[in-house]
């Protein structure tokens, strides 16, 4: 079951968390409890949100998840974070990269017409929406977080601690 979770969890929380593997994951399937130790935040999380900071280092000592899967996800998932450290610093040129990458993504479908088989390009993309997306949305909308929370910003000898 832990193996199964290793594949499922990253698709749910992969945008936010990374480092989920056999060593970090422990689960009690019947109780719906999942515990992750020594994991970290996905460094691209802040840039995706358009924040002018980047994550230099992060560590979540322990993340306890209470997943009401037996109740068909009709109750919120509870997350409890302990020993959470983040080191972030102001990011430079993030917007420039964003602009270029955004336009490249936009143009990707146009340039597909210069590929070997241009007929493939006009095929519509597969719809990703389905039960999985529904549950993902439901979980994210109702997630409950409790945390012992530490945050740190550091740059050029200037610091803020919370």
């Amino acid at each position, binding site marked *: 079951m832990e193996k199964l979770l290793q594949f499922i969890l990253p698709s749910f929380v992969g945008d936010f968390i990374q480092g989920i593997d056999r060593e970090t994951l422990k689960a009690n399937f019947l109780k719906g409890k999942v515990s992750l130790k020594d994991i970290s935040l996905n460094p691209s999380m802040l840039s995706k949100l358009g924040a002018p900071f980047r994550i230099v*280092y992060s560590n979540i000592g322990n993340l306890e998840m209470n997943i009401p899967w037996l109740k068909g996800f009709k109750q919120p998932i509870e997350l409890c974070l302990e020993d959470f450290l983040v080191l972030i610093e102001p990011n430079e*040129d993030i917007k420039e990269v964003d602009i270029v990458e955004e336009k490249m993504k936009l143009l990707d479908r146009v340039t597909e017409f210069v*590929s070997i088989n241009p007929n493939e390009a006009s095929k519509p993309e597969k719809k990703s929406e389905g039960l999985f997306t529904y549950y993902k949305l439901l979980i994210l909308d109702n997630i*409950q977080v409790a945390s012992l929370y530490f945050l740190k910003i550091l*740059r050029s*000898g*200037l*610091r803020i601690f919370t």
Partner: protein
Amino acid sequence: MSVYTINEQGEPDFFDRTQQKNLNRDLLKNITLKDFVVYWNSEEEEAFLISDNDCKDSYRKIYLRDYIMRGDKKNPEAHPLFDFSFDSRLTIKTVDTSVNEIEPKYKLDISLEPIKIILNNHQLRQIIEFSKELKAKAQKSKVHLTEELSEEELLAEKKAYTNSLVKFYENYCTSKPRFKWEEVLQAHKGDRDSQMIYRALVIIPSMGIIEATREAVLEINKLKKISTQKKGKSKKGLFGFWQAEETQVQPEDTQKEEEKFEEFYQSFMLASKKMTKDKSVTGFGLTISAKLKEAGVVFFPDTRSQHFCLEMRNIKLDFDFIDHKNLENFKSNIAVFDLEFFYTTKNHQMANHFIKRLNDYDHRNIITLNLNKKFQDHHRFIELNLEGCNFEISVIPQISELIKAIAPPKDDEIEISFTKGHSDKIFDSPLLTRAPSLKKPNIQTVLTFTSNLLQAAVTVPMNPASLLETDGWALFFDKIGLSTQSDLSGVSDTWNIDSEGIRMDYFDSLETYLRNREKLYLPVDQTKSLYNLISNFQLKSNITIAKSNEESESTKNLNCYLEAGKALFYINPLLAFKLSQLPACFEFLKSLHRERPQNKPATGTVLTVKHNGIHLVRYIII
């Protein structure tokens, strides 16, 4: 910290946006931060350990925890020297209205418990420098550049981009199954065509770049067909006549492919227009409303023997960021019911007030500040509206210590001008190092400032060292309005000052002043008073300052129009003597004076004074 979904009544709730009953509901979240603490460690000496790239993650973890524990107030071993900046309980209610609306919008409703911020001079300087650094970075990353291209320039850029894309394809992609944009990114620092492509991706707007890419795709496909035809012909050989029909591209096929591409392109353009509109034009708006019962800032300029305190009560803040991609576009409103700003010594013997309420009867907000910023057509429009009511300002020398502490060092001094923008800073952007031929955008700041102060008093104590015993002057305004506007062309700034009910009194002791203070704002003619110098005076003025052009030799022109009402001065020998001593009270301002390069004398200055509807004086200085 806790985060959970709530319903409209603020109770925990389970939200399923696919259910019919929830289709018109917004998603609400409650975020609570208890024992929320921010501290600014200005003395940290070991920070380099964690910022070092070679530092192992396991060590980073140890160092980080160590730094944090030093600032933890609950930790008995916490460093006693860290002045604490922020300690509160914060509740944020977020509303995600993107559930129903096409334009996503987030609302934050923040309520803060009383907060007290304690800062020393070192921390304040660091915070100012840090915020400057952040501002400069934000400025760099702003891309107003696309708007600066004229029609012709845009056309030339698009053509250059199309050519470069075709060349890049020919050089790198002909043998590959498909065109990959990552290769442009990988090659863009060395290869000229990829540099041009990168530059175009930065400066040409989305719709323009799609059009130019379409041209490139058509061109590449034409070239591909020619080369295929050539290949077909060359491959003919002995049995070539069997293959000839398969390899040769028929004009009907080409037309079909082009039609297919056109069909795809049109639908793609429609979808892209919607997509780019949602992202770059509308952005996701953010509205923040914050309520705070009490807030205090304690500032120690140098030592802990003296400090400045700013205390505010019943504060309401509203921010509306219209476009998250350009944080310059926002509306904000700050209302403070009560405000006290004072200076005190370590033993709190006496608080010398700079600002405080004039009386307790008036229930209007002491300060309401409204700031709107908007960026449009190469102009940064700033509207600042300040309303003040029922407050008293004391001119006491200790304020100079605060100004000195906060003011930037001499070499950082920036001359403030209404129409001078920060276009130079934007031009330091690394974007432009890659786009060297782009012309400098001329961004102009247009400031409209209006202030309306009602029932304001300014007191000038003659001996600020002992406020209880000192005599002094009190200047009272029933109404004073100030408005400035710079015109779009940046040629001149206009100032309008409109004041009513000005009166000036001399008091021989603080007690006298306090006893008579309440009468100040009453429209009673106190002319018989011994201490009254002037009462119920009106003054209107209009000042237009024409700005000198740096390139030309012309100097500033000043046009000043004054209209004064009836003025009666009640002067006796005592008042005349005390009036002559008044300039000494402003001696402390000299210590703030910094040497500036001397301006050329103004020429063409017109000064008009009108008294009771009659032009009294008209000066023309050349």
